[in-house]
């Protein structure tokens, strides 16, 4: 219980405390910078791992993101939250990696076998049969559905993938996603809509 409360307390970042840390980091405090890293790096790594789908690139994005932040911290002017700023760096680095990968025509691999199985029920049926009530079938299909979702995510454009990732998996509000993208909430809404339409179309037609 104590540990849970401690974790819950850690989740509440004191913005004043963070401002102080940023100022200390800006004057060269490695300790302050590492504390900032520890506060945000799980989210950044999760974003990178989801976006790129493999460990090696996720590690590269993690390194590039925090090294860029370290080198350009003096240019941070408190015009946005540090969280938004670091996410903006991470999303740009992630998108760069996706672009490089497209250029090289590498296939996205989620380190899993995604071969189709003819005897597996169509996802359309799974979705149609999915009620909001627990049933054993749904659990059995879980892993297979997960594989189909990974395939479906590959059909999204970079920006659609990014907005979907930030909203669905990272739980950020669309307003903040707009800020991270250097765009507007409306633009983020449009990307999210297109992403969900594409996912629904892909998954119900499999």
């Amino acid at each position: 219980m104590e540990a849970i409360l401690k974790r819950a307390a850690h989740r509440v970042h004191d913005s004043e405390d963070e401002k102080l840390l940023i100022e200390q980091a800006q004057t060269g405090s490695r300790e302050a910078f590492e504390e900032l890293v520890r506060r945000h790096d799980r989210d950044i790594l999760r974003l990178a791992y989801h976006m790129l789908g493999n460990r090696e690139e996720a590690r590269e994005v993690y390194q590039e993101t925090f090294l860029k932040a370290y080198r350009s911290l003096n240019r941070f002017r408190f015009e946005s939250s540090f969280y938004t700023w670091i996410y903006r760096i991470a999303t740009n680095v992630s998108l760069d990696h996706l672009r490089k990968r497209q250029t090289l025509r590498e296939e996205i691999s989620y380190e899993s076998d995604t071969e189709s199985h003819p005897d597996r029920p169509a996802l359309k049926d799974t979705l149609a049969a999915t009620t909001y009530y627990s049933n054993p079938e749904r659990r059995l299909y879980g892993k297979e559905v997960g594989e189909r979702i990974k395939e479906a995510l590959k059909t999204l454009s970079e920006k659609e993938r990014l907005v979907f990732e930030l909203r669905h998996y990272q739980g950020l509000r669309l307003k903040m996603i707009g800020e991270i993208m250097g765009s507007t909430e409306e633009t983020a809404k449009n990307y999210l809509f297109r992403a969900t339409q594409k996912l629904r179309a892909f998954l119900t037609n499999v």
Partner: protein
Amino acid sequence: MTCREYQHQISLFLYEELPEDQQPGLESHLQQCDSCRHAFEEEKGLHYVLAEDAAAFDIPSDLLVQSRHELANELDQIERKRPWWRIPTFSVVFTPMRLLESGALIAMGLALGVYVSNQRAVVAPPVAGTTQPESGFTAGLPANGSVSNLRIVSANPSSGQVELAGEIVQPLRFQGSVGDDTVRQLLVNALSDASNSGSRLRAVEILAERANEDTIKNALIQALIYDENSGVRLKAIQGLRPYAAQSEVESAFMHSLQHDVEPGIRIEAIEALTRNSRDAHLAKQLEPFTRDENNVIKMRALQFVGTNQ
């Protein structure tokens, strides 16, 4: 408004991003339009499937440790290449206070060198049954572990004594049956303490099968209420479902129904509460949810209250 525009709203509605003033218009349209209602149901299904899948997307437990370690090495290299006049200690030596601080830092650095060469780290004894690292200690620090959150507790430049505090993280590998008390305790610890939600998810999956034990049941209740990962909360609720009639479990489900931000969890909660219940008191508690903004919850509450009140 066109059906496409309403379908745009459906997407936002399910992410709880549709402004309140636009919700009545959407609900009214859904009652009249079969096509949009079908789209709504399908997208709801998609959300549920995606919510369950979200948990499987978590980062492997060792990836964060490895990434932090690599970043620290990179930062070390950058600092080594940095010219001495740009090192923070020297870059601000123009104020008297900074001069003093710089002097103190140099003294502390010297003292730290003396201390590290003369002291051995104090390491807590291992948990029974755990495997000790193969290699020993070098200069007082574990060769296969790492030190994190290091801070200087006190330093006396004149005596050269420095007190440091931090955490030594060493690899732990333990194998055993889930029937083993130590394994179960480690799993309960992982469920409450693991920073990686993938580990918490695996722990909750195993523990959910043994929710009849009080310690595990309590751990699942805590996870359901406090865990930040919706996949963990979902697995916790599924493990607790057979015990919905027990008061502490019922209270936890009511808490989730009232406060959880994830619609899928709230729906699981009301389903678990009402599945085998004919309780008039519960019907009274669920009465406010007959006006819930979530249609699935509203319908389920209406059905239960209608038959049991």
